[in-house]
């Protein structure tokens, strides 16, 4: 179903989030049963609904690791978090989460991926040091498309 309230720019960013789950490898969970990857959002409702629709379709297309979508405020733990606004860095559910921010204007400390716009297209930067600190490995295919950054 079409989401008329969401801009194309945000639809593209939502789709990038899905791809990040494919091109970034999280360490295996210490569990005997498959554990979904928890994607947490702090966004508008219409963005959340669009993301939920994408995730539902993706999960139904398996077999692959399932994604569990949650609101940041309700989540106990998040592997991947997308923020449209700055949140308290001390939130415990974000302590081991890869933070993706909507733009540099969000100003969230310790963000690993930041979207920006260049020539009317969505681009993103990856802070290699942040991802290394989270023990995450990134596909070279994703790195080729990213602007690589390091901690200052």
């Amino acid at each position, binding site marked *: 179903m079409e989401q008329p309230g969401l801009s194309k720019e945000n639809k593209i960013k939502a*789709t990038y989030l899905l791809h990040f789950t494919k091109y970034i490898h999280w360490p295996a969970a210490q569990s005997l049963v498959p554990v979904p990857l928890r994607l947490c959002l702090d966004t508008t409702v219409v963005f959340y609904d669009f993301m939920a629709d994408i995730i539902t379709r993706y999960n139904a297309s398996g077999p692959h690791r399932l994604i569990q979508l949650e609101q940041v405020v309700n989540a106990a733990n998040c592997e991947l978090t997308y923020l449209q606004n700055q949140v308290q860095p001390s939130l415990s559910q974000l302590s081991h989460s890869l933070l993706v921010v909507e733009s540099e204007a969000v100003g969230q400390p310790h963000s690993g991926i930041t979207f920006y716009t260049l020539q009317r297209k969505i681009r993103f930067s990856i802070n290699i040091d942040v991802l290394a600190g989270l023990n995450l490995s990134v596909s070279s295919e994703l790195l080729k498309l990213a602007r690589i950054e390091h901690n200052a």
Partner: protein
Amino acid sequence: MFFSGEKMKLACPTYLIISATSLYAVMSNISYGQSTPSEFAKLSLVQLFELSIDETQVKQQSLSPWSFVYNVKRVEFDGYLDGDASLSRDEVWWQGLPDVRTSKNFPIVPTVITQQAQVISIGYQFDPKWRVHVSIPYLSQSTDHISGIPNYTNFTINTSGLGDVELSASHQLVNSAENIWWVTAGLSLPTGSIDEQGDTPRAAGDQHLPYTMQLGSGTYDFPLQFSYQSLGAHDFSLNMSAVIRAGKNDRNYRLGNNYSLAGRYNFTLSPSVRPFIGVEIMHSQAIHGRDEALLVEAPFAYPASITDPRLYGGDKLYGKVGFTWEFTDYLMLTVELAKPLYQNLNGPQPKEDYRSALNISHVI
């Protein structure tokens, strides 16, 4: 929406084959507008990277279900194989007594065969799951010969004209976030000539030309293709295709069926340029029946290998390299070079040296 595949299948006359499934192949990377979560979820990472945030671009792309492809393919044959063993020209060329004439040497020997096809294809997308295509090929062929016959020691024969027009329809079988499956079925119409003539050593003036120099199959043929495109972390595609021929044409023969399995892996050099490598294995059958006009009244009725319908078909394994370049939002260039890595032919048969393809696709 996007769908992917790769195939550039050949069709006719006997060596160079252009089929409607080629349109599917070329159009595989043509993009259309996205709006729904489902459509966005099917975008590959690279396709997503190329999307503009302009809302107007979506509307503009979504308006036109038409697409257009111009494709040029070329194939060259040089040398001979019997099975997978190379034959020298002297082994194939019967130069008169005291040489012993057999069914595997000939008084007339094609040396270099070049075939080129220019194909214009138009596609129309009814909805995200259905599209139809029409492909119109124009063929140009040239064959150099040697023989021991006076005035024909070295001669070249050329033919050109309309090939077999193909109509086809593609249906999306599976469309998930991980992969896409399409099936394409078509009908090849016998619009290409099978009555081409030229000056050969068989007699004075023009005579009917061998199968390789004809422009069509002369039969109604049925191209089929199954295509798989991965949308995961690795960008690769698989294609299984066949050209099934039915009945016999007006000259009492039909070309052999063709079957192929191809795989292609795309790399990301930049957001708009994607090199690829691929392999393809192809099996083709010999010609069924024979054209009586090609025979001579002699103990050995076939004056050249290309007049013997049994000396067609075989197995080939190709290695391929190429790239796609999306140089605007509406135009994409694809260049491909294929080299046979292994050939096992019903020989003696001309050995394929290489084939190349260039196409430009455009969403109207």
